[in-house]
């Protein structure tokens, strides 16, 4: 891929496997991509294509076992210092310091991603307590360096601003000031996402809020520490379309204001057009095509992308004449070394069932992983076994 220095997140050759009684599932298979500062990259694919696992790998949230990072690195670049961290190999302390602070995540179902037994206020306060304890103490008029409890003890008492610190501080008479500082921070985070009555929301439990409101809370929580990268894992799938529109408006607006880069995971290609700068399409654990969003949507090159776009019902399509992709997604348990789409592909030829296509770089910042764009001699098969060739120059026409 590109070698410019203008990147925020670089996923290199990431493979994630899951051990199951029936065999090893190769959920993510040698995936590479990068996210530039302030841009939105949409990672699109259908159920089970590995997009969510990829997203979770960036946060190192894949449970081990059964999960396993089989190869690759997830590099996060500090935009100010230029220092690079590999999330997969960094010590856990560093990973935790990054989570919620520099990378934040919104989940698919806000109803499930909020703890049902804690108030909204407490759940947001946790983020501040974890990453902004010093700031809160300053706001409360306590010098974090010399204060009643030093910054060192704040770091050790990671419960942050919650109970334990309160307890210590109560005796020193700072409890109220800290509580006020936390409340202020939480309220401003909430009202930033357009929640009309943050004080009321703060003291309510998740089940008392509507779905849209819960997702607003999640966004507020994710953006609380002004992260460089926001991972949005199907943030509107569980929501109604009118609510979805407002949540998307909100994410858009927050991005404009704060310059957060977004990795947007979705199965819905129609969302991508409104939203994304660039687009990467995943199929069966691999990226099959990527490039500038509008370009890819306008002239998809990979047969899967083409099929996916044609399968979406549109105003003009005659009824019953949707171009469906035959068959279904293959099992990823110990898969053969071949193009995973070959079983459903109309172009499928001999070579497709024996070779894994590589991502080929094309003009116009596009990449496609399809043997139709490769040369027979470069992969060493008989030309007659290759699918009909497409010259890369034809792509950007």
């Amino acid at each position, binding site marked *: 891929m590109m070698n410019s220095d203008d990147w925020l997140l670089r996923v290199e050759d990431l493979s994630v496997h899951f051990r199951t009684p029936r065999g090893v599932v190769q959920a993510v298979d040698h995936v590479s991509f990068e996210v530039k500062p302030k841009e939105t990259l949409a990672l699109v694919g259908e159920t089970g294509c590995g997009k969510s696992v990829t997203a*979770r790998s960036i*946060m190192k*949230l894949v449970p081990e*076992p059964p999960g396993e990072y089989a190869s690759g690195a997830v590099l996060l670049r500090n935009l100010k210092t230029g220092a690079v961290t590999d999330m997969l190999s960094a010590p856990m302390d560093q990973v*935790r*310091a*990054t*989570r*919620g*602070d520099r990378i*934040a*995540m919104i*989940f*698919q*179902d806000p109803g*499930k*991603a*909020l*703890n*049902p*037994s*804690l108030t909204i206020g407490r759940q947001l306060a*946790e*983020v501040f307590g*974890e*990453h902004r304890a010093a700031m809160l103490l300053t706001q409360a008029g306590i010098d974090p360096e010399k204060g009643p409890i030093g910054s060192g003890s704040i770091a050790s008492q*990671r*419960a942050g601003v919650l109970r334990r610190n309160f307890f210590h501080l109560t005796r020193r008479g700072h409890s109220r000031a800290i509580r006020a500082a936390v409340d202020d921070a939480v309220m401003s985070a909430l009202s930033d996402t357009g929640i009309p009555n943050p004080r009321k929301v703060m003291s309510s*439990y998740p*089940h008392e809020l509507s779905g849209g409101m819960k997702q607003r809370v*999640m966004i507020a*929580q994710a953006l609380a520490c002004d992260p460089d990268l926001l991972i949005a894992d199907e943030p509107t799938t569980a929501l109604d379309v009118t609510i979805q529109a407002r949540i998307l408006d909100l994410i858009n607006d927050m991005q404009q204001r704060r310059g957060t880069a977004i990795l947007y995971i979705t199965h819905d290609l129609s969302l991508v057009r409104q939203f994304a700068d660039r687009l990467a399409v995943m199929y069966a654990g691999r990226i099959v095509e990527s490039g500038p969003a509008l370009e890819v949507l306008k002239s998809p090159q990979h047969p899967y992308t083409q099929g996916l776009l044609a399968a979406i019902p549109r105003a003009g399509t005659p009824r019953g004449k949707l171009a469906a992709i035959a068959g279904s997604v293959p099992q990823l348990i110990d898969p053969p070394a071949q193009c995973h789409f070959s079983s459903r592909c109309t172009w499928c030829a001999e070579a497709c069932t024996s070779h894994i296509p590589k991502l080929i770089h094309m003009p116009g910042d596009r990449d496609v992983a399809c043997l139709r764009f490769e040369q027979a001699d470069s992969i060493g098969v008989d030309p007659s076994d290759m699918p009909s060739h497409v010259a890369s120059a034809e792509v950007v026409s």
Partner: protein
Amino acid sequence: MQVKQYLIRRLALLPLIMLGVSVIVFTLTRFTGSPVGIYATPNMTPDEVAALEERYGLDEPIPVQYAYWLGGLLRGDLGWSGVSVAPVTDVIGLKMAATLELALFAALVAIIGGIALGTIAGVRRNKAPDHAARFFSILGASTPTFWFGLLLLIPFYLWLDWFPLGRSTPEIFDSIGHPTGLYTVDAAISLNPTAIWDSIRHIILPAVVLGFGSMAIIVRMMRSSMVETMSEEYVDAARAKGLPEKLVIKRHARRNALVPTATVIGLSFGFLLQGAVAVELIFRWPGLGQWVTGAILSGDQATIMAYVLVTSLIFMLVNLAVDIAYAYLDRRVVLGS
């Protein structure tokens, strides 16, 4: 407000169910025929027996007899305890205090141990601690309490003589006041170190034996609900916030796993009450269980029935308390039901 309504409804159900229990108990007392046999002697003529029946209202129709009996019950008349040679009401308080004390300590053992072990097992799923905890829980559920008690007596009483039998050393017991009736608590209040040590020495072994089975049940439930909550998305979300794993487990996973465990804790109190029968027998603990086994052997029905009524009442009250805790732990419960 909703919580209050829910609790009022639960509370309203309590007397209804107790009424049902009383019907069952009354049926049992009449099961083997008229209780006139208690008073009659074999050489009485049928006329004399009939006179006795009339005197005690036993010639009335059964529902009327039940009404008499229930009326007595409500006035606190639980009958004459043959084994204690005293009215049931007079002795039951002391016995109940002894059993409750034992059961509460056993519950403490079971709840603390069960939650701790269950949490570890659930977090470290399919690893050694998990396997150990699971096997332990199955073992606990399979061990006959009375046998386990006997077994522990051999090393700890027979060989080492660490723990004495009975509830107390009488002289020490009599040397302090008894405002609550619970020896350990009274000893603590009296601040008498000898009494405190005496009470603890006596209660440890029976409490551990009694709590063992219930702990197994709590471990099992806690483990499975921990496994469930650990895979919830809010746990991942908590990790994504950057919280340390300890806090993720404590505040996010365990807190929610406690909710379903709470009901099991309530139900396991039933196991404690019934297990107390054998444990009291073995450790010579002067509680309801020892009392009722004596009554069984001498055919003292009034005592047996009083015992059934009282234990059910305790059991139901404990479950009510658990329901209150449950409603507090999980506000959605009330709205959901």
